[in-house]
């Protein structure tokens, strides 16, 4: 028996770049470009159905001081 697809047409996941994905790419680039002198970090938080992705610059030489570059907040899209 063939299982019926109840999901409908879904977009190709490979075409989807979430905000956290974009930020992680930039975090990684920062680390590479500065040879680890500065490191990029992304924190993902969620509370009450709201997500927050924050891109930090981490400075190991300053005892891991963290500076927030930007934060993106978005709800779960229904």
């Amino acid at each position, binding site marked *: 028996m063939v299982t019926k697809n109840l999901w409908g047409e879904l977009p190709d996941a490979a075409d989807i770049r979430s905000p956290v994905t974009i930020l992680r790419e930039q975090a990684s680039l920062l680390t590479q470009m500065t040879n680890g002198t500065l490191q990029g970090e992304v924190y993902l*938080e969620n*509370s*009450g159905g*709201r997500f*927050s992705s*924050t891109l*930090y610059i981490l400075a190991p030489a*300053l*005892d*891991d*001081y*963290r*500076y*927030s570059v930007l*934060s993106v*907040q978005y709800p779960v899209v229904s």
Partner: protein
Amino acid sequence: MATFLFWNINKKPLQDHIVALCHEHDVDILILAESDLPAVPLLQALNTEQRSTFRQPFNLSDRLFFLIRYPTDWLKPVRDDGGVAIRHFIPPIGPDILLAAVHLPSKLYGNESDQIFEANRAAQMVTEAEERVGHTRTVIVGDFNMNPFEPGMVGTRGFQAVMDQRIARRINRTVLGKEYSFFYNPMWSRLGDLSKGPPGTYYYNSSTHVNFFWNTFDQVLIRPDLLDLFSADRFQVLDVAGQQSLLSSNGLPDSSLNSDHLPLLFNIEIERVI
């Protein structure tokens, strides 16, 4: 004794008032929110004819401004995230302290859910900083844009800031299997006209059905581990700077000449444990 002054100056040119307050109250750590004041003239004014000098520590926050009357390496940056600036205060003698300054989002730009979310985020940042430094000798001061009784201030995932030191000294409580740590909030004792000092720190007369008129958005929160060093007697909401009242003739913050917020002054008696 370390004396702290916090003031949201609402982008007003209040250098003279700031200098008067710092000199009158022997302030050691000055924290400003909504300040456009250039640092150099302020430092020059603060340090004129003074025995000890203010310095500007490393600070990347564009929302909170620090000046300290200590060597700058006593105040190390831990984290800057929007309206949250966390610093590690490390005197050579006495206990080190975690100092967080906040300027959380205003009700003008968000609803209660937004403020709860931001309070939860800020509280989590403080917890992470405490884990990094290995202690909970923490004080948070700033413009929370919430009153002491609002959910972001009292909720477990927010600051869980209580009005009774005896409750705060229980350290934490468990809700649905998870432990949450307390802060003590002395601002509860500063609500209303029968309290010491002005009835609040910010006055706003709205046209809505619920109108508190006086709000206490500017607050200081203390972890129980620091309570023995917090001087309740010296804690003040200030309404005078030098000879100048910060209130108008009707007893409200004179926002035409001064800030629409009143400053907070408090002490941490670091030398008490020496």
